[in-house]
């Protein structure tokens, strides 16, 4: 499951967000905010995509640099929301 989340998140960032920021490759621990890959527009595209793709709810209070600063952080957030859904 974890691998799936990671590869889906990676693919979305690589195809939908990174190209318009002029970036080809993004490492899983790379800062998505400093590099401009996730900007004020991209963050809500990303949230909408994650909610739809994984059938989870992400609250506004979860839209933080800790959760969205890296691919690792996004994966952790999604995994915790999936776990919450299952519980």
């Amino acid at each position, binding site marked *: 499951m974890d691998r799936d989340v990671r590869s889906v998140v990676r693919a979305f960032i*690589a*195809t*939908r967000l*990174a*190209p*318009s*920021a*002029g*970036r*080809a490759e993004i490492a899983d621990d790379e800062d998505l*905010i*400093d590099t*401009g890959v*996730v*900007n*004020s*527009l991209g*963050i*809500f595209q990303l949230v909408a995509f994650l909610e739809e793709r994984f059938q989870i709810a992400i609250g*506004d*209070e979860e*839209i*933080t*640099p800790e959760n*969205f600063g890296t691919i690792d952080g996004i994966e952790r957030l999604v995994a915790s929301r999936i776990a919450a859904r299952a519980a």
Partner: protein
Amino acid sequence: MAYLLQQLLDVSADRHPDKPAVRARERSLTYAELHARSSQLAHLLRAQGVARGDRVGLFFPKAVESVVAMLGVLKAGAVYVPLDPHAPTRRLGAIAENCGISALVTTAERLRTLEPRALRCAVLVSGEPRAAHEIAWSALDAFPTSAPPDSGVETDLAYILYTSGSTGQPKGVMLTHRNALTFVDWCAATFVITADDRLSNHAPLHFDLSVFDIYNALGAGATVSLVHEELTVFPRRVADFIEQHGITVWYSVPSALVYLLLHADLAARDLDRLRLVLFAGEVFPMKYLQQLADLLPRAELYNLYGPTETNVCTYHHVDRWRLAGQDRLPIGRACANTEVLVLDADGRRVAPGEVGELYVRGPSVTPGYWGDAEKTRRALVPNPFQPHLDERLYRTGDLVTLDEHGELVFLGRRDNQVKSRGYRIELGDIEAALYAHPAVVEAAVVATRDEDLGSRLRAFVALKPGEDVTPASLQAHCAGLVPRYMVPETINVRDSLPKTSTGKTDRARLTAEGGV
């Protein structure tokens, strides 16, 4: 009375030396410190040969040094050019080339990505110098903390702001000290900014909204808190910032306020100190404006209007009691010392209620575009109502009408310029980027209206036979040539683009038919 922007700081540094002038990223500078540091920078720049009228690029993320650099350049008698820290290197290189940037205030890391050809010196706000023309920030310590004597006049350029141009080349709007001060003086009188105010700076520094924040704060002896780039991604953090900094005056594009409204739980916050909320740059969707007005019962709301070429030229005070019955928010009436005219295609005034193009004249209007006499001639036209004076009208390209209350209402554009989150975008600029790709034979970009953002950009391209290029790689190509906000959200590859009967690309059809 100040006739140069830096004189606003002189007065406030004298009256309020120990008050915080600027805050950014958990750091702050008092008025005395800002005055001393910017004076040192001015001496250093002069020692490096920067002379009156020379262009100095500012190229680093927002920090307290941003304001030091602006004032330091002005005190040196030079002209600053704020460069978008997230813009593609090639575009920034074109700007540096266009206006002949001879000095930079930047970071060591960013300098490596740009290195303009005519560069004489680079002052580094962070990082280690590697060459003789690179100077560490600590070198400022050696220079006098009192300002060099002012030698400029009010018609000297203060800064150049680059904006999207229709042919793929950004154009540099030149603003003089008088242009900026006309606006700042009008603001001070209209909004009564005092030393007790705390202004935010949300807009990027290469965006003209920031002129309001910085210079109104300095002029009043108030504090300006810079919302740094990474913070703007997270609406709740921006709302925390407004609370923590006790912001009393906020100015931004409407979409930034809409993001706060939708995602920052404003109802649960203490925003009573916010006394003035100004917005400009695009149309505020009425349903959100009503919600904002309800959430901020104590704040006065104003819609400001003006292309970069005119600073702000009209304003409208939002009347809470009239809001429910309004389907469009007026852009309002002319600011002090500014005249606005609504003219038809033959240059005649139109009657109230009729549609015409908005023209602007007065001391806030730009003298023109840097190094582009042709574009300047087309945008600044002779004033037919003042045949005996060599006076120019700025042609905005905006279609407006005068309503029954004597206020102007914005209706649309007469060309292919659109707005997204307040940024001016020439669709031709993006099409030029697409055409620069070797596989592209036809390209058209259309904008569709979006409630929250202003507009969304969609591109349609036809490729050379046998070429196989993905939309993502075309986006990446665009990102190398135009800023992020101009990269189309979607790119549709077609065999060919639809044509009108006259053989032009049928934009209306592309706009209507959608695609992904």
